[in-house]
């Protein structure tokens, strides 16, 4: 059996088929997911003026809870306190409808408002489609990512011979092939992790539906309760929950853990109870959970950290997928690997386009999408500075506009340069707009940790454009590919 004929060629056909079906959406999912790794940093960036702290006091939280409870008496299923050790060094008091930052003395501060970050995360989770359908679709691409990995490895008979190969320049075809293959082969473990964990979030619903129909007479909650501990049934006279006592218990009995948030379930009812979520050191499980009655007496430690293996695995999928487990180092690792995966999606179609015998509208639409999507994200952030609710419109209007305008392009090389320039200009405008809107708060850590890297990225892109201008002879050869056929002009 000749590997290349019997396996590699059909595998390459499969890989190409999958690529043509999936690449555009895969690219958007990878790009948005990579940027969303820093969703907590973006939340802070949206409101840089908020005072930040790593510490809190129980008196502060108790006062905040009582004040919030009095100010918002309308019914709500939950009240939450988000601790400054959650990954965002701010204290937040919220219910299901509104959230306030909390001052050190327990007084309620500004309302929390991070619409752009929410839009970014929703873009990744649902592609802004109706949620039930969108999440299933996005998760399906997690499964397709697994298919890409399998077919890609099978389609690569020179996987060892080419392991460190890196050609640049020329027509760009070999450069795209080498980037595509080097990025994808070496990061195979990461890609499989993303595929499997990414598939979980949307497919869990389908999975539960099948299991509940087959074994639980359609009772989906019964299936969920096998993995996630069911809520306790309690009944107490109405009173303000003793959150201080509950927090003290956790601090004394789980000193290595980091408090994420506290939830009062069914507040102002006889069945209300307190649940505290505590991140565990060196563990991927989202949290260990402690449940208390309204008097702050422990009901149970749920047991995610040492319970059933299956529950631990499933409860770890969130942190494993989003890279939110070891602070900034894990986020940086995921960002770099995520950008590689995004580049793989882009270079895959670049390769297919370059290998075609002819050119058509796809040759301009694809680079327009690749560079238009990040430009759309930046533009939406700029719009969001002045009109938060319009951020999602800013994203899609700019992407569609860039695609539409690119249809008129006759020189792909020139188009690419213009797209890159548009991205650079968008970033500069965003930072300038940010300075206008936020003034001195632009110098806060929350602002600088996003704005400086953005400016650095725009600088790198600008350098790459300038680098191309400094080598016009090389570019002229390449432009032969991209100059429009006379037939098109006629």
């Amino acid at each position, binding site marked *: 059996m000749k590997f290349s004929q019997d396996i590699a060629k*059909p*595998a390459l*056909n*499969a890989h190409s*088929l*999958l690529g043509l*079906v999936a690449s555009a959406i895969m690219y958007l999912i990878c790009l948005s997911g990579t940027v969303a790794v820093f969703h907590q940093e973006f939340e802070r960036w949206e409101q840089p003026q908020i005072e930040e702290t790593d510490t809190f006091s129980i008196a502060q939280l108790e006062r905040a809870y009582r004040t919030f409870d009095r100010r918002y008496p309308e019914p709500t299923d939950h009240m939450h306190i988000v601790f400054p050790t959650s990954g965002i060094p701010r204290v937040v008091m919220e219910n299901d409808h509104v959230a306030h930052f909390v001052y050190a003395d327990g007084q309620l501060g500004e309302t929390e408002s991070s619409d752009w970050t929410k839009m970014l995360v929703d873009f990744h989770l649902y592609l802004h489609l109706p949620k039930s359908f969108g999440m*299933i679709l996005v998760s399906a691409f997690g*499964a397709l*990512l*697994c*298919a890409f990995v399998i*077919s890609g490895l099978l389609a690569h008979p020179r996987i060892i011979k080419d*392991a*460190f*190969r*890196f*050609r*640049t*320049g*020329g*027509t*760009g075809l070999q450069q795209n092939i080498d980037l595509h293959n080097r990025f994808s082969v070496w990061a195979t*473990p990461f890609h499989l*992790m993303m*595929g*499997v964990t*990414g598939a979980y979030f949307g*497919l*869990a619903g*389908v*999975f539960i539906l*099948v*299991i509940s129909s*087959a*074994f639980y007479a359609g009772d989906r909650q019964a*299936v969920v309760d*096998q*993995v996630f501990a069911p809520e306790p049934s309690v009944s107490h006279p109405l009173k303000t929950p003793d959150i201080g006592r509950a927090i003290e218990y956790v601090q004394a009995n789980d000193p290595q853990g980091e408090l994420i948030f506290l939830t009062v379930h069914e507040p102002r009812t006889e069945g209300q109870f307190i649940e505290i979520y505590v991140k565990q*050191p*060196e563990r*991927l499980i989202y949290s260990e959970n402690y449940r208390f009655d309204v008097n702050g007496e422990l009901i149970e430690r749920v047991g995610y950290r040492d319970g*059933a*293996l*299956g529950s631990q*695995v499933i409860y770890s999928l969130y942190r494993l997928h989003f890279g939110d*487990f070891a602070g900034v180092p*894990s986020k940086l690792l995921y960002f*770099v*690997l995520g950008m*590689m995966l995004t580049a793989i999606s882009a270079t895959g179609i670049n390769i297919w386009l370059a290998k*075609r015998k*002819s*050119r058509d*509208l796809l040759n301009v639409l694809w680079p327009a999408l690749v560079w238009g999507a990040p430009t759309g994200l930046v533009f939406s952030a700029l719009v969001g500075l002045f009109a938060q609710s319009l951020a999602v419109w800013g994203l899609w209007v700019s992407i569609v506009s860039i695609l539409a305008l690119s249809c008129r392009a006759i020189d792909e090389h020139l188009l690419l340069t213009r797209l890159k320039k548009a991205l650079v200009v968008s970033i500069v405008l965003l930072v300038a707009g940010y300075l206008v809107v936020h003034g001195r708060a632009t110098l806060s850590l929350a602002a600088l940790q996003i704005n400086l890297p953005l400016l650095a990225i725009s600088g790198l892109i600008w350098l790459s454009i300038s680098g191309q201008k400094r080598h016009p002879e*090389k570019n002229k*050869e390449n432009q*032969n590919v991209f100059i429009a*056929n006379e037939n*098109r002009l006629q």
Partner: protein
Amino acid sequence: MPYAITLAVLTGLAGCASLYVSWKKDNTIAGWSGWLMITASVWLWVLGQGIEYGLVAGLSLPALFVWLFIVNERKVQGGKAPHKPFGSWRWQGRKVLANTGHVLFLLLVLMLASTLITVALVHYLPVSEPTQMAAGIILVPLLWGGLAVWYGMAERKRGPLISTLVGALVSGIVLFVV
């Protein structure tokens, strides 16, 4: 172990360097040494950060380390690109229909089939229900991916299509009838 992380990073780098030398000089011993060192670095990551963080870091970082050596192999190419004619799109109804069929199979049929087959399979695993579910959650995308590759590789799509549907049907019978 206080220096475990530093040693893990250094061992991982050394492992990638050894793989590079093996590739460059066609040296089998360097190759085996490289893989051994990368395995050792994963072990050191686990020692320093626990098994969960350690495995993620140890398995992911080589993808970054190798670029120190890949950039060393950078070769700038010259050459003139061939001129390609610019064509306009033609509506090809048959191709659109075929591609729609591919999309429906890959996204919808395989989702349902892989879920049914997986649930039927894991139900018989001799482990607790949460562990069955966890195994299923991991298996579904892998089975889905495998079936998608089989479908894509087949010259005649009928085989994988029928086999997938039969597998789903049998699983459905096992789950809902038997």
